[in-house]
């Protein structure tokens, strides 16, 4: 009857996703034309966050001013700036596209997942991307500028050809893993409703990932690389660009991330069985 084939003709899944995402971005802007103060506040907040990080490491590396050349497990000040650059970009990406995650617990409790369950398309995709944030985008610009600055400050002449080639790859990895990490944190909420566990896991793990993973004990480093791979957000991309990892790791790690993404999708989908909805 309905759904005449013409309506769906020639639309691949990717094209569909892009169209929906575009729709979400559009309503993000429509929505934001109203709260101007909030916009400023949130941008300021993230700038504060960036500055406190940059300043902290400036102070720490500055402690070596009287002679000692300080590093953090091999990361000198200049490479640390790049590391922070990726950490900021990862954070801003989440802010921009995945802001809805902070409401997931409450939405589960109040049964607000219902409309997304009956719509075509993956529930998680429709749900998590629905709150595009223009202020996040502003922060993304700021964070990217910092990353660019850090890369240029690495040496005379700016990034090498290889780095130019690897940068988009690295950013893709960051975006990809940020999406599935977000899903992973929130999947926890599906299993242990009302616990805030997902929220806390998210804050905790991203916090850990914002420092070079080598400073932690070996086991913890492995966990952060292979179990809850926050290493994909800053550690892997900066190590890749700065040539700090061997070829096997450089090529193999994305596979780990794909496996992680697959597992998370499975777990999330399974967790939806625990959704009880509410009201009605």
């Amino acid at each position, binding site marked *: *009857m*309905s*759904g*005449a*084939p*013409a*309506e*769906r003709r020639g*639309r691949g899944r990717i094209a*569909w996703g892009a*169209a*929906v995402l*575009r*729709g*979400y971005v*559009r*309503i993000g802007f*429509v*929505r934001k034309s109203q709260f101007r103060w909030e916009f400023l506040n949130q941008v300021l907040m993230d700038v504060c966050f960036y500055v406190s990080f940059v300043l902290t490491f400036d102070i720490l590396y500055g402690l070596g001013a009287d002679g000692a050349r300080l590093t953090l497990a091999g990361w000198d000040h200049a490479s640390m700036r790049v590391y922070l650059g990726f950490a900021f970009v990862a954070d801003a990406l989440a802010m921009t596209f995945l802001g809805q995650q902070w409401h997931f617990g409450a939405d589960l409790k109040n*049964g*607000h*997942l*219902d*409309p997304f*369950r*009956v*719509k*075509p*398309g993956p529930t998680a995709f*429709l749900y998590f991307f*629905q709150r595009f944030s223009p202020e996040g985008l502003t922060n993304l610009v700021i964070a990217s500028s910092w990353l660019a600055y850090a890369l240029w400050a690495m040496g005379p002449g700016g990034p090498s050809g290889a780095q130019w080639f690897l940068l988009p790859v690295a950013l893709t990895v960051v975006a990809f893993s940020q999406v599935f990490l977000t899903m992973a944190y929130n999947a926890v909420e599906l299993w242990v409703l009302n616990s805030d566990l997902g929220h806390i896991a998210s804050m905790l793990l991203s916090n850990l990932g914002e420092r070079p993973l080598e400073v932690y004990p070996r086991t913890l480093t492995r966990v952060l690389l292979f179990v809850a791979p926050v290493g994909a957000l800053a550690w892997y991309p900066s190590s890749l660009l700065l040539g700090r990892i061997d070829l096997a790791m450089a090529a193999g790690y994305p596979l780990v991330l794909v496996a992680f993404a697959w597992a998370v999708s499975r777990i999330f989908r399974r967790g939806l*069985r625990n*959704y*009880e*909805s509410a*009201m*009605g």
Partner: protein
Amino acid sequence: MSTGEPGADEVVLAARRVGKVFKTFERAPGVLGVLRNFVARKEIEVAALADIDLVIRRGETVGLIGANGAGKTTLVKILTGIVPASSGEARLLGRDSFQLTDEEKRRLALVMGQKSQLWWDLPPIDSFQLLREIYSIPEECFRERVAAFTRMLDVEDRLKIQLRQLSLGQRMKMEIIGAFLHDPEVVFLDEPTIGLDLVSRETIRGFLVKLAEERGVTFVLTSHDLEDIEETCRRIVVLDSGRVAFDGDLDGLSRRVSGQRAVEVHVDPGAQLDEARLAEVLRQHGGEVGSRAADAVTILVPAEGIRGLMPALFDALPVRDLSVERQPLEHLVREIYSSSERSGAALPRSDEVEST
């Protein structure tokens, strides 16, 4: 109409022994209670549905009714795949409801009176645009449908106002438009008329009836307003405490419980009633006096007897005014509830399981 035209009696929706059990924790009151909850919580199982069997074919319009807490919403949520059934099997468009693919979801729509599927801080038109992307609706169809539906529901001038600034009725109409934009084959409406005024309700009913006729939409409607059901649905399913207490067409329902009509006769003021003749007429046509007032008498009569009774009444009494009413559905439903209680169909409400 889609390719490979399915038969008119294609089964759209089938539930087989569907049951649903919710687990909740009991919160003990007071400080001590809180501490106790902290260590060991009492788990309670609430059986919301049990052994629901239901088959709905293409084009059917089904009214789902039942008292508060009977399980209507839960059943709708299971059938649409929002929550899984705890037991039994629910199938929609030939697939397990909880495993619907995008293909089936595109043919499905859900309207919930209690919840908004549109974005509350956006004007409806923006939400519709988004739905257009999600359901991949072609631009021309989209524009046509928005125009036609807003005209039918009389909300053309409200498209650009934020949803939260609309009145309840306007919002509900927008929800309904949003649900029909992608031209779904099966539509579930859970209390779409809750809190609406008479005019809005009638507009919505008219809209549903028209779409059901023109496009052959199959829909399942729940409402506490039986008039909604009467006007829009041909088949009725009554849920009582999580079980199907009645399933059949509307007329069948009337017949099953009672085929009575109530005839209210007003006579000229002060006129003397010929009691003997009245008794004679009633005897002939199988009626009886239901109640009497100063210058009026209400006669109850089986529906078949009504044809003969009317002329006889005019002959026998100084009739000034007369009205015939079907026994309202409300009474019938109440009778169904009480009869199913008598037969002990009600579920045991909960069993308690101690857990640590």
